[in-house]
């Protein structure tokens, strides 16, 4: 017998067998409030994170019992873009069907999802003429089944099917229509459930992503620290000549002075020994006279007055030399302090400038005269060794920009909750097109091997870390003026980062 698909209302009814309208027993419980409430409750449990498969199965069983069906199944589109169907729940299914993914567009589910219309099948599906293969089990050859698409907001998210055994009355179109309401409800519950599952997955994904980002962030910060440290070492390297000179000079004269002192002391001890011998009355008159003559001769040979004044000068100069070595070593130490032990501390910017000047002065004094005009500055909360690095960079750049002999002026002051330090030179200046690039990493106009191209880039990032900025004003042939502005009150990293992001 030919199956004749007939369309009615929004649904589709396929009557493959005898068109025996059965009494309305199908959706008896649908109007039953507790039943709907139970379904709602099941939907709620879906959102609480219990095993999703179990919840789906429970919902299905609830529906199957509600529709007086013998069996049923739910298929969901698991991947919105690919329209992949997955059987997520079912009763009386052969093993392997649950969780399987039927080929796209096949079967009753495929048909219903493709058309978006509910389907009523009475009789063997194979005879319906539909492009479907309902069941190949002979005992299911004749049965009554209903299938609804599950739609939310005009979007099909899956399908629900229920089957009734041959012994029971067949479903009717009225059942199909009433079931439509149920399908809508189920669609909401399933969508809710899927959203919940999706949210859980997203959350896991997000936290994984977050952890990965935190790791990357840490790695990035490490890398940045490395760059800053490397740049610092490079700029100390550039200072090496001055520092070596400044350390070797005092060491040289102190060493030499010690040599001279040794010989002075030897001479004086000789005289002392001779005097003691001359005083020794037990030695006999002749010997004592000889000893006296010897002592007198020695005494006359040395210039005691000279030794007296020269030894005092020698010791004072050596003291001064060693104090200078100690100072430069301390400055170097405070300057070269590692990035790991850096802490925000209240610091006197003038002291920081002076200690940096101590290191660079020896390098710079051959190129420029340094003038300082310090204003009144309160203590500012900074990372002192980092800020020293900025000062050093700007001072070295200023000196290097001076072709023969020039001036470097350092001025400080306070304006609008900001401390500023201005380092000004009368060197060669920076062209307009280069000014736009000076803070780029690796940008340098110095010959290969002389500059890393990181100095200003690192300086800029250090000043930004302080919540400040570097202003540049330069003209070719006239010189450059770099102004570092730092907030008097250090805001917390997070807040500043947030503000920086907004800017």
């Amino acid at each position, binding site marked *: 017998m030919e199956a004749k698909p007939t369309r009615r209302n929004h649904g589709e009814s396929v009557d493959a067998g005898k068109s025996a309208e059965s009494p309305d027993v199908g959706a008896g419980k649908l109007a039953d409030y507790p039943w709907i409430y139970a379904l709602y409750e099941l939907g709620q449990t879906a959102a609480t994170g219990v095993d999703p498969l179990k919840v789906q199965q429970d919902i299905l069983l609830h529906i199957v019992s509600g529709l007086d069906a013998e069996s049923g199944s739910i298929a969901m589109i698991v991947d919105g873009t690919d329209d992949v169907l997955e059987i997520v729940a079912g009763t009386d299914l052969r093993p392997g069907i649950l969780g399987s993914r039927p080929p796209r567009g096949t079967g009753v589910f495929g048909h219903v999802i493709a058309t978006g219309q509910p389907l009523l099948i009475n009789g063997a599906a194979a005879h319906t003429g539909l492009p479907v293969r309902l069941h190949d089990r002979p005992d299911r050859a004749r049965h009554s089944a209903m299938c609804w698409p599950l739609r939310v907001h005009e979007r099909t998210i899956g399908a629900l099917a229920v089957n009734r055994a041959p012994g029971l009355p067949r479903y009717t179109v009225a059942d199909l229509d009433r079931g439509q309401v149920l399908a809508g409800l189920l669609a909401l519950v399933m969508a809710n459930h899927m959203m919940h599952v999706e949210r859980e997955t997203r959350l896991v994904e997000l936290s994984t992503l977050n952890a990965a980002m935190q790791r990357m962030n840490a790695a990035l910060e490490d890398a940045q620290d490395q760059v800053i440290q490397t740049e610092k070492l490079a700029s100390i390297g550039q200072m090496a000549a001055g520092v*070596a000179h400044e350390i070797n000079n005092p060491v040289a004269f102190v060493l030499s002075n010690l*040599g001279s002192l040794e010989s002075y002391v030897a001479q004086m001890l000789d005289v002392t020994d001779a005097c003691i011998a001359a005083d020794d009355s037990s030695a006999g008159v002749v010997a004592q006279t000889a000893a006296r003559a010897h002592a007198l001769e020695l005494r006359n040979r040395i210039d005691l007055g000279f030794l007296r004044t020269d030894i005092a000068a020698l010791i004072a100069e050596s003291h001064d030399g060693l104090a200078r070595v100690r100072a430069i070593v301390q400055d170097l130490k405070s300057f070269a302090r590692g990035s790991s032990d850096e802490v925000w501390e209240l610091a006197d910017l003038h002291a920081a400038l002076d200690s940096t000047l101590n290191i660079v002065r020896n390098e710079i004094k051959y190129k420029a005269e340094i003038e300082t005009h310090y204003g009144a500055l309160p203590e500012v909360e900074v990372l002192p060794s980092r800020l020293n690095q900025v000062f050093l960079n700007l001072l070295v750049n200023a000196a290097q920009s001076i072709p023969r002999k020039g001036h470097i002026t350092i001025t400080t002051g306070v304006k609008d909750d900001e401390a500023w330090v201005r380092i000004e030179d009368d060197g060669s200046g920076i062209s307009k097109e280069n000014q736009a690039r000076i803070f780029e990493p690796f940008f340098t106009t110095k010959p290969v091997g002389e500059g890393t191209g990181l100095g200003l880039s690192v300086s800029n990032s250090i000043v930004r870390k302080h919540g400040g900025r570097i202003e540049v004003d330069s003209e070719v042939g006239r010189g450059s003026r770099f102004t570092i502005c730092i907030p008097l009150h250090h805001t917390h990293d997070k807040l500043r980062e947030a503000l920086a992001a907004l800017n």
Partner: protein
Amino acid sequence: MTTLLILDDEPHVLSALRRMLMNQTAMPAVPDPHVVTFTSPHDAIEFVRSHPVDIVISDYRMPEMDGATFLAMVRKVAPDAARLMLSAFTDLDGIVRAINDAGIFRFVAKPWTDTDLRASIIQVLQHRHLMLENRRLADHVRAQNSVISRQQLELERLEAETPGITRVHWSDDGGVMLE
């Protein structure tokens, strides 16, 4: 008397060097030292212009002028003064100029060792003394040569006038053979 001129922008280095050189008890000692020190290269060059100096010792890194430039000027003004460079730091370019332009005799690194520096100075002084002596002798030889060549000229004139007159042939028994 040995006049030693020392130039360094660091006064303490100058006084330490003066002490070391003036000290006659430490060996080897510079004979009869007369030490003049300067912190300014311009003052130093003025001194070299107007006084005889045996050896000039200069630092390399100085604010007004580097040591290589200064010693090159000394070389022009007083070529016979020995030149020695004493420095804590020099780049390659500085050393090249010190050797090629200033013709330094020695380069001593700071910090120096007193004994080594004194030995270097004495060696440079001896070398200079030998050079001066060598030149004096060479001049002497040249002067003598010029005397000889006058006699040679006379001989040649005589020979031209009377050929064979400058050559004497001896016989086996010691007699003079005339041709």
